[in-house]
């Protein structure tokens, strides 16, 4: 294969990882010594990639066409098929037009190539389509053709329903990329994802990539939490294959078990522990989710500091917001009971009203609602003491559904009672920076006394 007529074969093999060591050496020499070979290699790689992408799109279109034919068996066969195919191809042509006209992104979403529909959302979100459209004004029912969705605040929440009925949901500050070219592929860069997956085609499981693991899902319900260092998988129903990338070890995680990449030993699924009713944030051990983490010093406790957020639906407002996740990986689920209380401690530069909210899920990991502890009865202004410290107590009994999810209240819980705590957040809205820092959030049982009560 070592004359000019066979260069394309060498190039083709390199693009597909099919060269052995001596062939690679030959190709390296060829590219080093021959500018014409370098130019042709780049052209070939470009051309081959174009044709690969066009073939993938065409394969998907044909898949759509076949499904149209299957549904409409009574129609006059070939004519109907031709019309359906023409319709699909015309819409697909619209995609190109829409790319050149980013404002018409909704038309793109209406094309036959959409893969999923927004079935629930709240809070600050940004969607970036594969073709570069960037939108902050997502709506319920919007059809998306793949891309990346980013939750910008701890109270952000987003649910996506694929065409087969499978749903995935991200909450908090999460970053998820999704695609479906015959096989659903998701990449959870960071944050928390729950999913309820319909049975997938043989050999085409849903794949979820994180930085440290790959999950293969055939049809089940589960919850994944990923950050830079680790991935934690909790399976509620069915079974998920979990692969740790650092050593290539794989394990099947059955229902009611969880597994984490963050162990030096064997990858072993652990039976979910029974729940606990008390919890304390440990900001001295781990940074919070949203805001600026201030590590402990000899003079002061570790804290999560609120940072400014301008809500997209209310650009004239600046909130000072922080969030703290409740990790699933290192302990039993934290269940909120109706008679429990949250105690929030921290620092303020000046008196301010502190708004406080929580996000909860049901036992299977499915989103169950966002609730606010400051709405039921008017929250008083918190007065910091001479050291700038404050303590506020919120009774679960007073928590009400967050207004931002009220349009979905029929699908959500009425109260957070007996649900699993996912994360908490706090913010001030006083027209100026408040210096809000939270040093500790504690969920306590009715028997426990707090500082003021001792």
């Amino acid at each position, binding site marked *: 294969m070592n004359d000019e007529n066979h260069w394309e074969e060498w190039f083709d093999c390199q693009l597909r990882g099919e*060269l052995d060591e001596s062939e690679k050496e030959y190709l390296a020499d060829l590219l080093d010594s021959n500018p014409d070979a370098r130019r042709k290699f780049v052209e070939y790689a470009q051309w081959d990639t*174009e044709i690969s992408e066009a073939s993938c799109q*065409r394969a998907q279109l044909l898949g759509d066409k076949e499904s149209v034919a299957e549904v409409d068996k009574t129609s006059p066969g070939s004519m109907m098929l031709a019309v359906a195919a023409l319709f699909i191809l015309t819409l697909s042509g619209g995609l*190109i037009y829409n790319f050149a006209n980013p404002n018409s992104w909704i038309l793109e979403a209406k094309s036959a190539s959409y893969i999923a529909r927004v079935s629930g959302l709240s809070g600050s979100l940004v969607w970036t389509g594969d073709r570069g459209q960037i939108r902050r004004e997502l709506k319920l029912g919007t059809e998306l053709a793949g891309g990346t969705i980013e939750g910008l605040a701890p109270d952000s929440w987003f649910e996506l329903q694929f065409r087969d009925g499978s749903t995935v949901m991200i909450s908090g500050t999460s970053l998820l990329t999704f695609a479906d070219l015959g096989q659903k592929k998701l990449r959870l860069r960071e944050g928390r994802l729950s999913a309820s997956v319909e049975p997938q085609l043989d050999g085409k499981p849903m794949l979820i990539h994180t930085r440290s693991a790959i999950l293969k899902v055939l049809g089940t319900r589960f919850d994944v939490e990923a950050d830079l260092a680790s991935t934690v998988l909790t399976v509620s129903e069915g079974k998920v294959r979990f692969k740790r990338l650092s050593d290539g070890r794989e394990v099947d995680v059955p229902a009611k078990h969880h597994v984490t990449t963050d162990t030096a030993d064997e990858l072993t699924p652990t039976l979910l522990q029974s729940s606990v009713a008390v919890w304390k944030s440990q900001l001295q051990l781990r940074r919070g989710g949203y805001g600026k983490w201030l590590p402990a010093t000899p003079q002061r406790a570790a804290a999560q500091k609120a940072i400014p957020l301008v809500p997209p639906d209310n650009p004239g407002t600046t909130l000072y917001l922080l969030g703290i996740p409740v990790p699933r990986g290192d302990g039993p689920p934290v269940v909120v009971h109706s008679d429990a209380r949250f105690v929030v401690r921290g620092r303020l530069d000046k008196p301010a009203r502190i708004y406080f909210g929580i996000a909860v899920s049901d036992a299977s990991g499915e989103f169950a609602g966002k609730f606010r502890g400051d709405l039921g009865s008017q929250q008083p202004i918190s007065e910091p003491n001479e050291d700038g410290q404050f303590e506020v107590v919120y009774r679960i009994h007073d928590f009400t559904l967050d207004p931002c999810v009220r349009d979905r209240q029929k699908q959500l819980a009425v109260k957070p009672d007996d649900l699993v705590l996912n994360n908490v957040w706090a913010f001030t809205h006083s027209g100026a920076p408040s210096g809000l820092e939270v040093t500790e959030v504690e969920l306590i049982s009715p028997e426990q006394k707090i500082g003021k009560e001792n």
Partner: protein
Amino acid sequence: MDSPEEKRDRVLKAALECRTELVAYARSLLGNYAAADDAVQEAMLVVVKKYDQFQAGTSMLAWCRSILRIEVLRARQRHQRERTLVDCLLGDAIDAAFEEFQATERKDETESWREALRRCLKRVPERSQAVLRARFADELSYQQIGERLGMTIEAVRKSLFRLKKQVRTCVESSLREAE
């Protein structure tokens, strides 16, 4: 003066317009389409975070390639593929080739070229389309394609090369006609 968000959106949009070029580059180094696609996605996330480091007036493609190069190395580490000296030499040679010869086409030219490609692929006979799909969409080896379609390895190889040539000729002639 752009707000930071507007600048971020503009940089990301320009970066995404180079996506196919970047996949071509990553495939050349990784030898796998899916891994290349993943690396490009990772690189796009870095672009979102580092958008303010892009200097207006410089090449977006070159900037993205430098980010992607790091993601390609990470992808190799993740898959625990030990890099031999030959791998390093070949990687450097490929890198140099792309630096020297890869350029971004004008967007309108790229779109008409891709539209022509789509039209030409539609004209390929059904049997040949199955070969193209098996190779490009399903990423099967010559042997696997042969088994699926009842062909010898040599027949698959010849068929693919002939088809690619036909499609390319078709694209070039339809673009000439359009002019």
